[in-house]
């Protein structure tokens, strides 16, 4: 009898540690987050729970009157609209080019393009901050040498967003390129042989065979990339702190600033939920479009 009970409990002992940690640090937090987004929890509330009050939708209403939040939303949309297509187009193009050959050169290139993905964001952001330096940085040096003027990469409000996008795209290419490459290698060779017999050019083959065969990978990469850009945080945090004048601030950074620098936990939680809702909505739209394409 005792043996039987042990047998029944055995599977749970294997999943228990992982499950406990996930429940404690993912499931419960999301519930707490939802609850405190309707409260005025701040640093005083942390010491004295009696001071915490439910304030209904006030946080959410205030958010949409907060010019800093609206600016962060605008910036985040800019990151998404420019960043997502750039990542998909570049990683796809590089994957197709690397798939051209199998020799050591192409293997080396696979390694070269993947390397930025594994390196530490803080270290890389420090390096790029130096490269973007207006007077001693590498990029302006090169621009000056070919006769172009200096650019205030991180100091000009209009350029700073682009500067961060360049870095983030550089870092994102590798992983997505590998996903495309794995998919490219799965396309049957006879598709191309048949097209060759019909006299299709390389370009026609790419448009009519390669891209359609990669539909699922493109969908997967666009969903994950979109989610990633919605949560854009590390680069603006290390390089610009959201400046100059809030021009690079993202919603994720807004949550961090309000939560951990100003200790407005309730307000920050409500901003994070707005972000979560936007991610879910955008993902649902992508799934809808994908289904439509498949059925149509």
């Amino acid at each position, binding site marked *: 009898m005792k043996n039987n009970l042990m047998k029944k409990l055995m599977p749970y002992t294997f999943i228990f540690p*992982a499950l406990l940690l996930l429940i404690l640090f993912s499931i419960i937090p999301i519930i707490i987050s939802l609850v405190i987004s309707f409260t005025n929890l701040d640093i005083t509330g942390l010491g004295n729970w009696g001071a915490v009050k439910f304030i209904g939708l006030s946080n959410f209403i205030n958010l949409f009157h907060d010019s800093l939040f609206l600016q962060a939303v605008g910036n985040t949309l800019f990151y998404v609209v420019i960043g997502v297509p750039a990542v998909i187009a570049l990683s796809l193009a590089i994957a197709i080019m690397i798939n051209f*050959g199998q020799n050591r050169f192409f293997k080396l290139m696979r*390694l070269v393009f993947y390397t930025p993905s594994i390196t530490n964001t803080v270290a890389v952001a*420090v390096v790029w901050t130096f490269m973007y330096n207006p*007077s001693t940085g590498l990029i302006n040096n090169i621009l000056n040498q070919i006769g172009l003027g200096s650019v205030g990469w991180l100091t000009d409000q209009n350029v700073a967003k682009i500067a961060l996008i360049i870095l983030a795209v550089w870092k994102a290419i590798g992983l997505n390129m590998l996903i495309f490459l794995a998919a490219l290698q799965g396309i049957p060779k006879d598709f191309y042989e048949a097209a060759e017999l019909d006299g299709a050019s390389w370009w026609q083959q790419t448009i009519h065979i390669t891209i359609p065969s990669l539909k699922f990978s493109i969908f997967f990469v666009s969903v994950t990339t979109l989610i990633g850009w919605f949560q854009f945080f590390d680069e603006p945090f290390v390089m610009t702190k959201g400046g100059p004048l809030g021009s690079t601030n993202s919603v994720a950074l807004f949550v961090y600033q309000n939560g951990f620098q100003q200790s407005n936990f309730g307000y920050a939680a409500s901003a994070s939920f707005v972000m979560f809702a936007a991610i879910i909505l955008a993902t649902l739209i992508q799934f809808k479009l994908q289904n439509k394409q498949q059925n149509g």
Partner: protein
Amino acid sequence: MSNSLLKSQQNSRFIVSVILAVFGFIMILPFLWMFLSSFKTNAEIVQNTRSFFPKQWTLENYRNLFHSGFTLYLRNTLIITFFSFVGMLFNAMAGYGFAKFKFKGRGVLFIMVLATMMIPGQVTMIPVYLILNQMHLTNTLTGIILPGLVGAFSIFLFRQFISNISDSILEAARLDGASEWYMFWHIILPISKPVLAVQGILTFIGGWNAFLWPLILANDEKYYTLSVGLQLLQGQHTTDYGIQMAGSSFMVIPIIIIFVIFQKYILQGFNIQGDK
């Protein structure tokens, strides 16, 4: 294949190679610049000599780096990395549990695990801080380690791999009287070597790069990791790019070396289309 077609294919391959080489050079240029600048004197950097290579090689930056507390940050980072391997073991155990046992609630629990992948870090950031605060774990290494210890994606990958291990091996061992734990250590883990390799490397990289939780939870320099220390260094030595580049090199170069050694395991692990 006709001769002219072969020739045109060779030509286009050559053009593609050139484009890749140029673009590839731009991709690694930041790393070259970082590494070479870390050996320049700060005077040379400020004077803006515009030379790519150091005029006068120096190890001064690295010496300063270790005088500014990097040894301590390295120790903390290695401790965190070590414990993230314990986390990987938990993931493997959960993967085995979900793959090879039938039990009440398996489906629901597994979906719950997968659902946690969708939750953005920023949504749970504040509540996790509040929970750790209630547990009196802020400003401790335990607090820094716990939130990132297990990951749903890793559990998912272990489960996928382990469900492909044939049941007959396990049945045979069971008939011989092996316990479930014995089978996990002596059969499941050795067979799972390929997935352990990928997960091991990713775990190492994750631990080495740990940034957000140490940043939020450590009020005290005593618990800073390399990433947090580097970020602090950037704030303190705003114009001393030499030491910043030395710190960045110290973080980036070991990862690149490890990656180059184990690349064949990682590069295989990304097939999302095709086999289950």
